[in-house]
């Protein structure tokens, strides 16, 4: 792997950019690995990277049924923030945001992390009261958040229609929040994981498992059987199917969340804005497209597409808030299959199957969690005990009753 730098660009210019080495290797699978990770999305790749780079576990494979980063990690709207309500979530997502702050350096790959602020507006007096409580809770967690009045909101979003159908009463902002480039995060982790010796094997769907005495012996894949000491499922919306192969049932439901972009325009909107009540959020990508989304399609789905009425609700809300966008044409609409836990918080760690670990429940908000999810799951797998930040996010919370009800606490926000 060659180091990316201004110098390497210059050097490669002399040979017409024909001699760049490939970013990651494309190996044939070995028969056995210490750790086999299923799913080369952000979470699977990051877990492999932190295992190989920081936990001393080098003999690692990541198996991907399609191409790496083609699942939700390449389909999301890239919002990164740590303004969660509960202290457990705050601590975990803040760790992730801090890792994002250095991720470009860490991976020697430009992930285009842009801390342009995440602005949440509220459209009723009641919401304003809840937001005050929320913004204060965030500060109590030691994380930045500031209440804004209408005038201050206009400074961040000059084109906003403050007197829309449900007039804006105020809002709050996490200035350190923002966005980054999703593909770059997947590619950056893949490149460094590969450089650290991880085998990333694409076009290698896992179709079955050989188990004995509540242990997994090996995985059946499109490229033959692969055995391992420890296994991790990082397969987002398909976690229930993969867990089922090991005889494990989970509190997960899969639904489709849609994302959409407009045609590209000149820079016009330099923050991330969301409204939970009228249910939309929007930002502008570095290519000029306005990236927007809203509610999920609220029925079980494994189709990577959703319904037109969900899009219409989102567009109606968006043009009400930002009338200046009303004449833009939508260019693309897509969906990803999201793994929802009942409390809309992740489930990361050990399972009743002795050598199986899961990273799921990321639902509609696990992109921002990729660095911390990978870091903490790698620690958990290497030491066979939950990382401190993951303790609250174990599977047993569903029987102990210690749910982390972020769904109720923070509404739409991704």
């Amino acid at each position: 792997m060659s180091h990316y730098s201004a110098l390497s660009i210059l050097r490669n210019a002399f040979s017409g950019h024909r001699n760049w080495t490939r970013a990651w290797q494309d190996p044939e699978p070995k028969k056995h690995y210490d750790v086999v990770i299923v799913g080369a999305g952000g979470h699977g790749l990051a877990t492999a990277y932190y295992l190989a780079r920081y936990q001393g576990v080098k003999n690692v494979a990541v198996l991907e049924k399609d191409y790496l980063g083609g699942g939700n990690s390449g389909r999301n709207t890239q919002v990164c923030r740590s303004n969660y309500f509960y202290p457990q979530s705050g601590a975990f997502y803040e760790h992730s945001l801090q890792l994002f702050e250095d991720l470009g350096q860490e991976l020697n790959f430009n992930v285009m992390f842009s801390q342009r602020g995440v602005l949440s507006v509220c459209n009723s007096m009641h919401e304003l009261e809840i937001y005050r409580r929320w913004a204060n809770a965030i500060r109590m967690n030691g994380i930045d958040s500031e209440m804004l009045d209408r005038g201050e909101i206009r400074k961040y979003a000059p084109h906003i229609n403050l007197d829309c159908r449900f007039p804006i009463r105020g809002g709050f902002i996490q200035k350190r929040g923002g966005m980054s480039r999703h593909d770059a995060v997947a590619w950056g982790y893949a490149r460094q994981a590969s450089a650290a010796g991880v085998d990333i094997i694409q076009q290698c769907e896992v179709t079955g498992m050989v188990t004995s005495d509540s242990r997994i012996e090996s995985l059946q894949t499109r490229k033959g059987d692969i055995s391992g000491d420890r296994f991790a499922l990082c397969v987002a919306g398909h976690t229930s199917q993969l867990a089922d192969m090991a005889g494990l049932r989970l509190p997960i439901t899969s639904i489709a969340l849609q994302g959409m972009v407009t045609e590209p325009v000149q820079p016009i909107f330099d923050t991330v804005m969301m409204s939970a009540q009228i249910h939309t959020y929007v930002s502008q990508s570095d290519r000029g497209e306005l990236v927007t989304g809203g509610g999920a399609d609220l029925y079980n789905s494994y189709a990577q597409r959703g319904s037109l009425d969900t899009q219409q609700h989102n567009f109606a809300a968006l043009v009400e808030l930002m009338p200046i966008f009303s004449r833009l044409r939508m260019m693309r609409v897509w969906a990803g299959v999201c793994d929802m836990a009942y409390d809309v918080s992740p489930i990361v760690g050990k399972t009743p199957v002795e050598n199986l670990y899961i990273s799921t429940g990321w639902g509609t908000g696990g992109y921002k969690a990729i660095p911390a999810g990978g870091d903490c799951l790698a620690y958990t797998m290497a030491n066979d005990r939950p990382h401190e930040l993951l303790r609250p996010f174990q599977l047993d919370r569903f029987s102990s009753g210690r749910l982390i009800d972020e769904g109720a606490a923070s509404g739409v926000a991704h």
Partner: protein
Amino acid sequence: MLRIPCPYCGIRDQDEFRFGGESRARRPENPDQLSDEEWAEYLFYRDNVKGRHEELWVHSYGCRQWFNVTRDTCTHEIVGSRRIGSVNG
């Protein structure tokens, strides 16, 4: 947009309805004897079927009745619907 056949009103657009989840969950008969794990199983654990799915819908902006739908979670094709308690039809 799904077109959902309400067994009472006929085919209507999906946005008249609300989704109610898997229809197989049965309220336990002996709630005071249930362990925490059994409660968790009833409240939170789901089959999350990929393929043909038995599910509940309610016609919120119509007759307000709950009913069963059989729908494919991969293709979204609706195979049929029936009143609660009826075996088929």
